[in-house]
């Protein structure tokens, strides 16, 4: 996989993460669940920033960034805290796996960014109830 292909895969994951975190935030009350709401807002901001950086990186490589999909699959029942955190956990685990492939497909500064992103996803998952793993992202 080339660096451009790897970045396009990461971008597709970031598009999904931004969409899903936006939806999860919309299901969460800032006053009733301030901790969860803040964690979702923070995750949304981090993935949005990473998406924008990946877009800029691809444009710098004269590649056309893949667009966001028209829609992303979301559970019909996101009415409970457990459902929201489970979806966020699943999302970060999926991102960690994507970042793992990104690490394997890049070198130098891009790989360092991928390594940092993998660590971020692994640690962020804890905020949504994930358990520490032996090898997150693999």
């Amino acid at each position, binding site marked *: *996989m080339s660096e451009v292909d790897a970045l396009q895969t990461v971008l597709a994951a970031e598009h999904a993460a931004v969409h899903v975190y936006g939806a999860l935030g919309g299901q969460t009350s800032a006053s009733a669940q301030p901790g969860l709401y803040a964690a979702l807002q923070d995750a949304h901001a981090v993935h949005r920033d990473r998406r924008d950086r990946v877009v800029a990186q691809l444009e710098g490589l004269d590649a056309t960034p893949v667009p966001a999909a028209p829609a992303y699959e979301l559970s019909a029942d996101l009415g409970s805290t457990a459902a929201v955190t489970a979806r966020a956990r699943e999302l970060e685990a999926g991102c*960690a796996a994507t*970042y*793992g*492939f990104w*690490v*394997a*497909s*890049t*070198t*130098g500064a891009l*790989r*360092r960014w*991928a*390594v*940092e992103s*993998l*660590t971020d*996803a*692994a*640690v962020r*998952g*804890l905020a949504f109830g994930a358990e*520490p*793993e*032996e*090898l*997150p*992202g*693999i």
Partner: protein
Amino acid sequence: MPRRQPSVTRRTTVGVALLGLAAVAGCDLDDLDPRSDPTSPTDPDSSAPPEDADTTLVAGVVVDLTGLLATVRAVPRPERAAFRPLARLHRQHLLALGADEAVTAASPSVPASEPVAAAEAVRQERRLQGRLATAAVAAQSGELARLLAAMSAAVAQHLAALPGEVGAR
């Protein structure tokens, strides 16, 4: 007479490390050769054999992990209990790299008789996490890079999961 530490040569350690990596990745040994790794960024014109660079890298990581395993074992009770998950993690990572029991039992940098404060153990764990990330960036093989990055992320997770009071002093 001082007890003799298990003797493990770097060459032996690295040999089993690469075998262990193959087992973890579920791949053939040929897959670890960056020349056959489709994700490897190896320059085919490089004069140094790339597998030697990764072999040296893995040997250094095994030494680092072995040292940290000894460090967390030297944290006095009752705080030592909080480090058990990290000790387990380091053992699992050593085994993932193919280091055998003799290596995981060795304590080359910290004698067991010298206690290590919990705060110092946390500092060393943070440094290890950074070294694993740096090693991931330096790896010639893409698959080795992924394994080392996952190990670094695992240490970060376990540190984040430590009780808040551990290492505060």
